[in-house]
């Protein structure tokens, strides 16, 4: 009897632990530093060193490793990707549609023209003649709310 009960209890505990998966990372975002994403992107260089907290609806999440999530900006059609090193934080796919707060700094990655148009093609957008700049937000702490 014991040989059956023990594995059942172990599996049960693991399944129940699903409900306890943390929605805050590294203590949660610092809500005193809130800044709209559009403002952050308008002054991108400034916020590469000055930590701020951004807020937005989670519109996409890395399906495989949960290493990034995309937040909707306060400005229409604008988004910002929150990116961590694999394993530093794991964003659940079920966070889509929830509101996320992330505290950290902005990283600026200039793209080549080829990279720019590859990304635009993936987004079903028309090609352009000038290379664009990729903005990634590197968080130190995150909170995801329902």
């Amino acid at each position, binding site marked *: 009897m014991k040989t059956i009960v023990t594995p059942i209890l172990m599996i049960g505990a*693991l399944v129940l632990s*699903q409900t306890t998966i943390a929605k805050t990372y590294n203590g949660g975002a610092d809500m005193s530093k809130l800044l709209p994403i559009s403002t952050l992107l308008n002054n991108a260089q400034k916020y590469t060193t000055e930590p701020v907290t951004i807020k937005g609806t989670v519109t996409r999440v890395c399906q495989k*490793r949960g290493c990034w999530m995309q937040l909707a900006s306060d400005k229409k059609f604008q988004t910002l990707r929150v990116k961590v090193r694999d394993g530093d934080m794991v964003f659940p796919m079920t966070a*889509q549609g*929830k509101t996320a707060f992330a505290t950290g700094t902005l990283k600026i990655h200039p793209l080549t023209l080829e990279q720019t148009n590859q990304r635009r093609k993936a987004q079903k957008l028309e090609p352009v003649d000038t290379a664009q700049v990729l903005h990634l937000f590197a968080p130190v702490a995150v909170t995801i709310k329902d």
Partner: protein
Amino acid sequence: MSWFKLNRSLHRDIGYFCIGMTLVFAISGIALNHIHQFNSNYQVTRTSHTITLSGLDIETDHFEATLLATLQLEDKVKARFWQDQTTYKLFLEEDTTLYLYPEQNEVLVEQVEPRFLLRQLNFLHLNEARAAWMWFSDFYAILLIYLAVSALFMVKGKRGVLGPRGLLVLAGFAAPAAFIIFYSH
């Protein structure tokens, strides 16, 4: 009790204790190794529907209610977002996302469900629980080191590692060494 018998007893009991953790790391290890071929965290199902969207004001509560009724979804919209000029997203409460393509009169229903058990195993393997799990994992790793070393002293004489079976130990070292030599440049 002699040290030989003590070693065998400890090896047996610690081995029993490590079964659960070993299964957690072994199963999730395979799952994570093949995450690009098989998403072991989530089951994602997508179904496409042809629904007239062009010419409609899709940014209204009335439209959303009608759409959910048409799709026979008993759920609520918790957020909405224009992904780009051609794609409007509706996020539902129950881990469902609707992709609306007004130009194509198409609605894609994407449902995300964490996989039974594998999601939890991966959660542990990737240390999403952070500090407490890290210390427990360290403890488990120390026990594994003990199991490996104590295994050398399980059988005395030439029937143990001093005999032909010692080649198995060498093979166990040779395999990772070969990978380092061939792939680390």
